[in-house]
């Protein structure tokens, strides 16, 4: 297999629910060994992307490929290389802890039972406990443990942080990082909680209604994207490609940009407004996300 071939490749995906446009001509790819986070507010279609990727939704037009195979014709071998976590850590909850391991173990040649039971042991769950009787956090560990035991080349995680308290979320993130670091694994995950993400994802793809807002390395966003506050007598600032979400906050103004303070000042003053006390702050990923997508 061509090592340069993207693990995930989506070309010109257009999809509607009824008459409501979800995206138009969505295209992106994920290179091997990367952890990509697909971030977006609720309702921007993150889960829809996951469904299309795995062939559980036929888009109006466009095509996705996993390991070079079209999404609605994935071969068994390719499906075996992909670990899938559904939204809400859904698993076959009628199994107990031991049964579900037994069930999945026969499907995957590289099955590593130790990885699963290692995680389970930490939770102090009895092996005979039924998954349906577990808390959300415990269920997430079972689902994650199964994925690690499967040892897939590509992990697709849909909103893994949903419903988790901070401790479990941190645990999940740590495991995931460790796992990805071990060797050439690709991870594609979605989340609407951005906290902890900066510690995890290499690349960040931010989805807005109908389009991709941004697809950049996380480090670039953290280094270059800043919040600028300033005072001005201007009533309004016209839209500018350099600036994001310029708005009045109390008596001051704020705006977001990848540009340097000089460039920002220049952009703001373009209409002759007076710009005073311009101040740049570095941002966490969550702040950057809000800066990019707006508060509403």
């Amino acid at each position, binding site marked *: 297999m061509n090592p340069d071939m993207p693990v995930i490749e989506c070309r010109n995906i257009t999809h509607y*629910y009824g008459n409501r446009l979800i995206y138009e001509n969505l295209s992106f790819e994920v290179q091997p060994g990367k952890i990509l986070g697909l971030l977006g507010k609720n309702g921007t279609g993150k889960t829809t992307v996951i469904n299309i990727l795995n062939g559980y939704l036929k888009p109006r037009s466009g095509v996705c490929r996993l390991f070079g195979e079209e999404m609605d014709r994935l071969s068994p071998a390719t*499906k075996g290389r992909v670990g899938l976590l559904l939204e809400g850590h859904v*698993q*076959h909850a*009628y199994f107990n802890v031991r*049964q579900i391991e*037994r*069930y999945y173990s026969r499907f*995957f040649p590289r099955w590593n039972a130790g990885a699963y039971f290692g995680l389970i042991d930490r939770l102090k769950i009895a092996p005979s406990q039924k998954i349906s009787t577990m808390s959300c956090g415990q269920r997430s560990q079972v689902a994650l443990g199964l994925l690690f035991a499967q040892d897939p080349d590509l992990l697709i995680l849909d909103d893994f942080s949903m419903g988790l308290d901070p401790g479990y979320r941190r645990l999940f993130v740590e495991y995931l990082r460790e796992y990805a670091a071990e060797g050439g694994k690709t991870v594609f995950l979605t989340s609407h909680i951005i906290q902890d993400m900066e510690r995890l994802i290499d690349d960040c793809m931010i989805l807005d209604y109908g389009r991709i807002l941004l697809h950049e390395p996380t480090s670039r966003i953290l280094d270059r994207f800043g919040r600028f506050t300033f005072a001005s007598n201007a009533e309004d600032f016209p839209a500018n490609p350099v600036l994001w979400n310029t708005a009045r906050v109390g008596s001051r103004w704020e705006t977001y940009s990848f540009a340097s303070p000089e460039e920002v000042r220049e952009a703001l003053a373009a209409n002759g407004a007076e710009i005073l006390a311009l101040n740049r702050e570095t941002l966490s990923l969550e702040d950057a996300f809000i800066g990019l997508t707006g508060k509403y």
Partner: protein
Amino acid sequence: MYRSIIYKEWIKTRTATGFIVLAFAAAAIHSFMKIAEDLRLSGAAACWELVIQKDPAMFPLFEYLPAIAGVLAALAQYVPELQSKRLKLTLHLPLKEDAILLAMSAYGTAVVTLVTAFFGAVLLWGLSANFPAEIAGASFRRLLPGFMAGPSAYFLASWICLEPRWSRRVLNFIPGALALSLFFMRAKSGAFCPLVPWLGGFMAAAFFFVFQSTARFKDGVQ
């Protein structure tokens, strides 16, 4: 890998299967007690004459039991798959999707068919101890449509159950229920004989209906 699928189906359906077997066993015991009572009270000769002249149903409880078992098996198998769309996990297994579905459907078919066939054999064996072969044969011919309704009900219920859209489920239910009602037309023992090959053909076709529902699920119909 197929063993694993069977294992999953077993975990899902074992309660329902136990319930089905229990219901069949209870109905069989009740039927035999009733027949034994009639033989004791009226005498064998009078019983035989009544059967020859009036053609009563010997096992009325077994007319609807297989169909109920079929519906129950389908619900036990597929309702958990549709809760939170777990079917996505199932179809994601490293096997061909058609093969996964085929294995699941074959499991359910086998459960319904084996239980009905086993109890059918028990009923006929029990009947032939006290009645001539012709009467046992007539009873078999009377039970046959109801027993064929078992797998048919299973196929139709699976088809309706796995259909992703509620409005469509209702639309599927109507022809499904009408078709199933054909298995329960009131008739003399043996009257169904010319219809049996057609009902068999329908059963064979209905086996594949569930693939239509799954194809729609895969297309993301909501």
